């Protein structure tokens, strides 16, 4: 091991050289001989009956190779897209599962729903022909407004889900919670909307597929976060191509944030059509298609109540949420507002009784699924909003109220009333550190100084918990998840001593090629430049579950460590043979096998060479070669936790909110590469600030048209929207994985919205403003300040 590249070192990202010099290879970069190009005809209506589709003129257009409609797909008996997580409702019945056809055949259900695919010799020719396809629609009323989606008489999205209800689910015992509320000294109530977000990965979704007539093999290149899972879904449920005849490659992928976990229509169609067309087919989403059809995130309407005793101890929490599913159930959509949301409602607190009721509703909007944090930002927004509001109502310091209710460090492992058992944590030192870094004591002076400049300054806390590192397979199975959640690794030495780490995780910006190499550099003493991380190809990597839910290091990294242990164990046997020593006496230190108390030593490279050139080798006992694999199934989720403190200044004349200070102190367990962790926290906070102040997916409530369908109207955070962040760490190592690591990919986005919104409310409290909807745009803030007056005029 070298300290410069081992665990804890700020190693520059090896992958950045190609990303920053334009030599990354993305799906759209693929040079495929004789390629054709697909373009999709999409519904301009949120809800309509397809009366007829006339493709005759389009088929005669120059360059057109083929045109497929929903009828062709139905005739070919292609399966529908699946929802891979069965949530049972409060009566024990599985959720309603309306069909999700790969291409709409008789009804379109959101603006952007696919109606036909044109394949042509060029993209322009495909677009020209798409314009010549005549679709006769019979427009129907659309169900767009989530708050009214379940009302009687709301337009029905699918007949299979009467009243648009996918499930009415609950956790906790309502009667017990009600009894606690009856005895409460104080009850705090909130009504909040968790605004809908559009993921906006820098690289739009793309797919390219090729069919080899000679072998009958398909290859799909896709912008997937989990190529093995995508292949499994396509093989087992949708296309019926046997897994061994379908290779899925996710090469360099430019960001996902969850939106590239799912199996989508377009990649399915491109694969299916490749064999029919007999030539490779390429498709890359245009940005407006990404806005319209990437699975969106969040979108909850929630009423919550917190019961407290006279001293401010939390007695019980009651939460009612309507969660938007969109027009079809995306791959993991059902799990997000249940097992990734309601199970987190204990937060960092000892709240003994919690009841949550979640109703999942269909609407005529794009499907909604996991997006950075997935359920946990929604839970944190509920808890941390209501806790801060309770502190205001009780005239208590928001930090003190939190401290009073934190789970004590002596209580771990801690069983929450909402299923999860937190493995480790120590919350008070985190908030203390955050308060120190943020100079909380000096805040009132800063508020007064801001006031002298005509600005309203506010401060907000958010103490989050998340369950990530998905996940113990058997728990997932009991909760209705359709897959295992272990991860795989293979360590393959070459005879010359360099090594490939093959992982089932997938990097689409996270820096695995650096972090995973650091693990091996540290553990086996191999220099970084002798290590290659291979991921994203079902033909070369072991079956794995991919990357999402902050799982790559905690689960994938643990698999790598297990495989490394096997390498060391085998190496010891080889070294013992070479040193003529007993295996029990061999130790492995800094990349070298040694016999304690002697000067005998065999470097790992020598043992590896001996394994591949086994001339002097214990062949009777062990096989040649140095190639080990491991599968790691975690014993529990991991539970990163932290506190963010945000300070904002508001211009009361314009309603503009400026984030002027933002502190985050996190417990991610042990940290492998602090620079990469900082990057994850920075990016996460920016996305959280984006949700709190800027981003909002807005549909016209009547027509279902996506109004915020481009960067002209969808506000992405920019560098000048945020200050330099102040970060800190506290470490309680995870007790159940070999690295002692938790996850860091989602934390920033989970905690930040509540911190920002609490700061906004704190700033506006002197004006008597009690609620500002998220995002706190200038308009929303101004209306909160002046709305009543303007309405009266």
């Amino acid at each position: 091991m070298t300290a410069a590249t081992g665990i804890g070192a700020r190693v520059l990202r090896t992958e950045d050289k190609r990303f920053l010099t334009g030599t990354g290879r993305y799906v759209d970069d693929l040079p495929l001989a004789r390629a054709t190009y697909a373009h999709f005809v999409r519904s301009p209506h949120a809800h309509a009956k397809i009366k007829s589709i006339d493709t005759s003129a389009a088929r005669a257009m120059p360059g057109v190779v083929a045109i497929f409609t929903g009828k062709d797909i139905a005739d070919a008996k292609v399966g529908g897209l699946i929802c891979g997580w069965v949530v049972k409702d409060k009566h024990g019945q599985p959720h309603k599962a309306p069909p999700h056809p790969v291409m709409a055949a008789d009804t379109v259900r959101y603006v952007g729903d696919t109606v036909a695919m044109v394949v042509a010799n060029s993209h322009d020719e495909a677009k020209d022909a798409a314009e010549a396809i005549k679709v006769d629609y019979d427009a129907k009323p659309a169900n767009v407004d989530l708050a009214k989606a379940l009302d009687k008489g709301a337009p029905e999205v699918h007949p299979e889900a009467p009243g648009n209800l996918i499930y009415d689910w609950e956790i906790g015992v309502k009667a017990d919670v009600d009894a606690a509320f009856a005895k409460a000294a104080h009850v705090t109530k909130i009504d909040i909307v968790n605004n809908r977000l559009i993921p906006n990965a820098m690289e739009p979704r793309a797919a390219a597929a090729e069919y080899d007539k000679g072998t009958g093999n398909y290859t799909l290149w896709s912008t997937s976060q989990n190529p093995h899972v995508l292949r499994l879904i396509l093989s087992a449920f949708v296309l019926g191509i046997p897994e061994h005849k379908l290779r899925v490659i996710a090469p360099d992928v430019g960001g996902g944030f969850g939106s590239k976990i799912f199996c989508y229509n377009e990649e399915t169609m491109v694969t299916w059509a490749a064999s029919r067309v007999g030539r490779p087919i390429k498709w890359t989403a245009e940005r407006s298609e990404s806005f319209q059809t990437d699975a969106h995130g969040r979108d909850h309407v929630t009423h919550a109540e917190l019961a407290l005793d006279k001293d401010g101890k939390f007695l019980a929490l009651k939460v009612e949420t309507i969660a938007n599913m969109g027009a079809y159930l995306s791959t993991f959509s059902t799990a997000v507002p249940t097992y990734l949301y309601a199970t987190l409602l204990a937060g960092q607190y000892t709240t003994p009784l919690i009841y949550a009721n979640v109703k999942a509703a269909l609407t005529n909007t794009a499907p909604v699924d996991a997006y950075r944090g997935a359920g946990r930002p929604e839970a944190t927004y509920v808890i941390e909003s209501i806790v801060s509001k309770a502190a205001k109502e009780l005239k208590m310091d928001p930090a003190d109220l939190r401290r009073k209710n934190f789970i004590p460090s002596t209580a771990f492992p801690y069983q929450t009333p909402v299923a999860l058992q937190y493995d480790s944590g120590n919350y008070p030192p985190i908030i203390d550190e955050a308060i120190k870094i943020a100079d909380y004591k000096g805040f009132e002076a800063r508020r007064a100084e801001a006031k002298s400049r005509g600005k309203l300054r506010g401060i907000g806390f958010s103490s989050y918990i998340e369950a990530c590192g998905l996940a113990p397979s058997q728990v997932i199975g009991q909760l209705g998840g359709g897959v295992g959640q272990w991860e795989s690794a293979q360590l393959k030495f070459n005879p010359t001593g360099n090594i490939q780490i093959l992982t089932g995780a997938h990097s689409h910006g996270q820096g695995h090629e650096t972090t995973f190499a650091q693990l091996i550099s540290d553990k086996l003493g191999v220099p970084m430049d002798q290590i290659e991380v291979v991921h994203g190809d079902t033909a070369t990597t072991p079956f794995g579950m991919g990357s999402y839910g902050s799982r790559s290091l905690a689960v994938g990294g643990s698999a790598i460590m297990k495989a490394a242990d096997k390498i060391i164990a085998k190496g010891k046997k080889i070294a013992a043979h070479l040193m003529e020593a007993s295996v029990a006496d061999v130790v492995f230190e800094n990349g070298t096998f040694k016999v304690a108390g002697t000067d005998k030593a065999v470097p790992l490279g020598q043992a590896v060479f001996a394994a591949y050139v086994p001339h002097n080798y214990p062949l009777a006992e062990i096989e040649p070669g140095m190639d080990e694999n491991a599968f790691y199934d975690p014993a529990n989720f991991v539970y990163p936790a932290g506190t963010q403190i945000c300070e904002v200044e508001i211009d009361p004349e314009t309603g503009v909110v400026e984030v002027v200070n933002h502190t985050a102190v996190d417990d991610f367990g042990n940290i492998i590469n602090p620079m990469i962790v900082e990057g994850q926290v920075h990016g996460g906070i920016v996305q959280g600030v984006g949700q709190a102040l800027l981003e909002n997916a807005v549909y016209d409530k009547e027509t279902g048209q996506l109004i915020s369908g481009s960067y002209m109207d969808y506000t992405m955070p920019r560098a000048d929207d945020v200050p330099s962040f102040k970060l800190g760490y506290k470490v309680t190592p995870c007790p159940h994985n070999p690295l002692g690591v938790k996850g860091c990919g989602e934390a920033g986005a989970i905690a930040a919205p509540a911190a920002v919104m609490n700061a906004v409310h704190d700033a506006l409290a002197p004006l008597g403003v009690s609620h500002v909807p998220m995002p706190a745009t200038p308009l929303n803030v101004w209306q909160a300040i002046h709305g009543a007056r303007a309405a009266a005029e």
Partner: protein
Amino acid sequence: MYDFHYHRPKTLADAVNLLKGKDEARPMSGGMTLIPTLKQRLARPSDVVDLGGIKELAGIKVEGNNVVIGGMTRHADVASSADVKSAIPALAYLAEHIGDPQVRNRGTIGGSIANNDPAADYPGAVVGLNATVTTNTGKHTADSFFKGLFETALSDGELVTSVSFPKAEKAAYMKFPNPASRYAMVGVFVAKTAGGVRVAVTGAGPCVFRVKAMEDALAKNFSSDAIKDIKVPADGLNSDIHASAEYRAHLVNVMARRAVDAANK
């Protein structure tokens, strides 16, 4: 985009000739609006006549009491021009806050005012400073040039060759950017010139407009206090997901006061 014939003439006369007689021909200056429109297939010109090769159309000159900016002068060149900065710093400030660096290095003043996007910045300065727009066929006063939403006094084949801005005794532009696009959601250009005081508002309505009541008040007392109670009616102002008409009307007052304060600094 759809196919079109592309031309890059070297002289204004050639450009005018290329456009003549072709109903579906479009001139292109910086292309900052036209190219996205073409890419989205929202326009289908037969010919695109790129004015980028016409050297005579670009450049900045000081002529007596006026700063004359060629139609094909890029925003970045206006923003960094020593002549503009010294004669009318508010104009350089405005140019420096249009779009992003890519837009400022492509977009031109002629293209901006000929397009007359309701959220563009330059119309505020042209009306606020009472500039004169010169074309290949004549001259237009600022007040007669901007006709309505994406509508100007330009006839077919008429190209903006330059814009002449009188130097200002005091001037400032205050912009409230749309949070997403950073176009002007409300932009107010306030100027005190030899010709009097003008208050021009862009972004708030379908087209740039003046606020006479503010101009009259400021002519008597050029201070923000003088206009603090002058409200513009919300009727007819733009309304969208970022700002209601009422909010825009409110912002006109706020931005106007801030512009006056900035002009007095």
